[in-house]
């Protein structure tokens, strides 16, 4: 019966190995379960499950396997789990509200409206604009509204509060920092570097030997990675559901101290004449100044969902923030940046099947776009290293 439990766990997606299983057998033989299902539950968990993100998968597997043995202690465990805040914290009331619109339906209607709408619109209950009770726009009051600009929120309330956050805690969907670091590590070009000299051990030994054993220290320039990386990240608005993912990429890149230079800037939906170091306080500098410092030896990685109104890319004054009137269109800015730093890619946290949105297609025509997954990141790194052609479209 117990071996069945192992396979049951593996069936539910836990990567329990035979080593771990044998450890459990050893512990059982030593009497650690004390003949008590509750103790067994914890014993098996500490030996078979090695990530807290897998705890809930284990709980479900355990409950379904032992459901015919269910005892008072076991129910207690389940209750405890139910109190555990790994689930998204939304009240029943909110949940009911969120069902007001089906997501696909909402997205479809949004796209339709976007195509129909030709002018800016405030108030009312149908068009995309500010205020009002249409599910689209910003500052509105519809429970499952599509946020078009404005601070905070997500693309839709449904997506933010719904399954996605919960899935994010499950490691099978998430690129963890380790994987990102491993992928980023491949981004290197070793070269003799200027900078402080360091002791060259082999040369020192040679020189000392030639010097009849009298120590002769030899210094030389160190070999360093000469990759210069600029990370441009979309934050706020529709990127909110991906904050965790973006933060992980960011921290992995930031912690990877093997880059010669590493800089980052933020933008909202599309870069225009300013790039920001802090979106909350709007601290930043003109894009031109950033570009001046760059040259084609730099490597540029965009992170963003490229999901916006096409006008934000194509129109003068199309920028999402209403008090911001850009004279040069977003798409022109994208071209300019690409010209300055041809070695560039765009990472999109949206799954590929959603890349049919007009704005994504536009961005994709300028930058080669890859999914923000391990495979996507690896492909992107290959492009940046020149292992694959760097072609947009």
């Amino acid at each position, binding site marked *: 019966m117990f071996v069945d439990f192992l396979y049951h766990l593996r069936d539910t997606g836990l990567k329990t190995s035979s080593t771990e299983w044998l450890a459990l057998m050893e*512990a059982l033989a030593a009497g650690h379960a004390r003949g008590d299902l509750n103790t067994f539950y*914890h014993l098996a968990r500490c030996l078979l499950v090695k990530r807290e993100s897998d705890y809930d998968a284990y709980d479900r597997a355990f409950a379904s396997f032992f459901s015919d043995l269910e005892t008072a202690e076991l129910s207690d465990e389940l209750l405890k789990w139910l109190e555990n805040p790994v689930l998204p914290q939304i009240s029943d009331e909110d949940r009911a509200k969120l069902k007001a619109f089906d997501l696909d339906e909402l997205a479809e209607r949004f796209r339709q409206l976007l195509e129909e709408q030709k002018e800016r619109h405030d108030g009312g209950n149908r068009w995309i604009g500010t205020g009002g009770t249409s599910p689209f726009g910003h500052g509105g009051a519809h429970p499952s509204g599509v946020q078009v600009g404005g601070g905070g929120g997500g693309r839709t309330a449904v997506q933010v509060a719904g399954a996605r956050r919960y899935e994010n805690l499950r490691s099978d969907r998430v690129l*963890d920092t380790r994987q990102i670091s491993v992928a980023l590590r491949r981004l290197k070009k070793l070269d003799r570097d200027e900078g402080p000299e360091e002791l060259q051990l082999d040369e020192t030994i040679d020189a000392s030997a030639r010097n009849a054993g009298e120590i002769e220290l030899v210094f030389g320039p160190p070999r360093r990675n000469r990759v210069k990386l600029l990370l441009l990240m979309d934050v706020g608005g529709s990127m909110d559901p991906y904050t965790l993912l973006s933060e992980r990429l960011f921290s992995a890149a930031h912690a990877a101290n093997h880059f010669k230079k590493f800089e980052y800037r933020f933008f909202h939906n599309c870069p225009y004449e300013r790039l920001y170091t802090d979106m909350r306080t709007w601290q930043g500098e003109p894009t031109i100044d950033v570009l001046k410092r760059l040259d084609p030896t730099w490597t540029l990685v965009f992170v963003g969902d490229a999901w916006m109104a096409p006008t934000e890319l194509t129109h003068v004054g199309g920028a999402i923030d209403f008090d911001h009137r850009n004279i040069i269109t977003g798409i022109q800015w994208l071209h300019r940046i690409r010209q300055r730093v041809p070695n560039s890619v765009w990472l999109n946290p949206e799954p590929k099947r959603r890349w049919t949105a007009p704005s994504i297609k536009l961005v994709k025509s300028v930058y080669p776009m890859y999914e923000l997954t391990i495979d996507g990141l690896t492909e992107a790194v290959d492009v940046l290293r020149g292992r694959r052609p760097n072609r947009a479209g």
Partner: protein
Amino acid sequence: MSFHLFTGTDTYLVTPELRDAVNVACALERPLLIRGEPGTGKTVLAEAIAQNLGKQLLTWHIKSTTKAQEGLYVYDTVQRLNDARFGDRDVSDIRQYIKFGPLGLALRSSERVVLLIDEIDKADMEFPNDLLHELDRMTFTVLETGDKVSAQHRPIVVITSNNEKELPDAFLRRCVFHYIEFPSKESMAEIVRVHHPEIEDELLRQVLLRFYWLRELPEVRKRPSTSELIDWIAALKRGGIAPAAIERELPFLGVLLKREHDLDTVLNKRRFGRVS
């Protein structure tokens, strides 16, 4: 069973699950990997085990530059080179230039010790993999002298991680894992009483109310931890703050919230709405 069982100490309260995990790790002689929010007492656990079981504690604090080899031993070539130059010591005896690290000392020890490998996720990504063999076999060879060190008594290894970096699967498979959950209000009251035995009931109630309110605010990015709560209470007591004032003013908020953004959020909330 022949070994002593870990039960927790007067100053370290332990949940039955954590206690069992410790005892299983001791019995199976596998490393115990502890994860949990900062301030949930991961590091202190090793001290508690050592104290409770009457063992010596060896600590290996991991930094971003720490190499696995340093935990075993370091061969001080520079010292030897220097000595050779000036003829201070007999340089033909390499052993005097072998300096053992915490893991090396733990394996050489004539009795069972507790080894704490603190914040393993701080090190390079390959660090845990480099330790696999030594932790598995509890043996290593000093290459320079050919001496083989193997543990007479396998140490009780406690490893803590803050989850900054994901650990490799091969490493995880060999560990006993426990995730320390954040204490409930009731167990928190007990924990506070361990550190502040003379605290008044009303003060404790108010403090916990505020503390859990702060933790549950979704906007707060760095949630205050147990150790910060203990410090906050110490600050409140020093300042002679009355329990009633805690609700009104949230004094010494800087002890609990360390990010400007979090502080601003909470202060704004207080300005524009009721706290509870």
